[in-house]
């Protein structure tokens, strides 16, 4: 996690967890492993999974196995 701590800092004051997750997905603009997202945001995988579920309900993101991507 220390390698990505600058990202955690960058996103720390960006908004709520879903807003931050959306920003990560937009910035990388590709399918991302859930573990990777959890690592760069300094959260647990289950926390990220909950956020992904919320974004899925809103039609923003889509979970594909162990990965997540934006809905185009």
């Amino acid at each position, binding site marked *: *996690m*220390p390698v990505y701590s600058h990202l955690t800092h960058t996103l720390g004051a960006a*908004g*709520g*967890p*879903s807003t931050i*997750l959306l920003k990560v997905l937009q910035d990388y603009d590709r399918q991302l492993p859930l573990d990777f997202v959890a690592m760069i945001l300094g959260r647990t995988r289950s926390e990220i999974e909950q956020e992904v579920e*919320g974004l899925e*309900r809103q039609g923003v993101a889509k979970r594909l196995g162990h990965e997540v991507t934006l809905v185009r």
Partner: protein
Amino acid sequence: MLRSFAPAVVAGLVAIAVSLSELLTTLYPRTAFLLLRRSRALYVYAAAYGLIALVVGLLLDRFTASGTIQLEGFGLSSPWIRAVAVGLTVKAFLHLRLFNVSVGSQSVPVGLETLVQLFEPALLRTILLDEFTAVRAFTTARAREYPSLDAVKARAKAEIPPTLPSQERAAFANDIDRATGVIEVMEHSLRFLGRTNLDRVFPAKP
């Protein structure tokens, strides 16, 4: 002495302005008004870059005067233009790294950035915590005037600007849905929409 010191001071002032504005506009664009009032670390951060720029400006002036180094480019023969150029570029220049050394899970940059690592991470962490504390104090006071969580959530979601991209609106709505307290809703609103919108949606009551 004064002839070389004055441009170096200009370099320092430019570096202070650049580092301050870069940090606030990239990381805290909507809560900068709170940080500017409450965070001493923010000013120490900017002053550190200002001091480094001042030293670089003095050294550059000395070396160019002695002919040790030569600078070529538009306007660089003027000490004032050089000072502005130093102020604008010193922060980016200090983040140059030659390679990383990994010690366990830690990665330590080696290069000019090693110097930055002496002060920047600790100051950035302090600024982050200062921002949290300031935002929490600001929203706690406002939240006392709006006790109903359901009403606050409904109002926050109804007032999301329709001009924002739909994905951002949906993500913000999800944050609001998952909030467990009025303070949390206010914090999300402040960070996402800014103070003007927070005042519009949840005006301070007299």
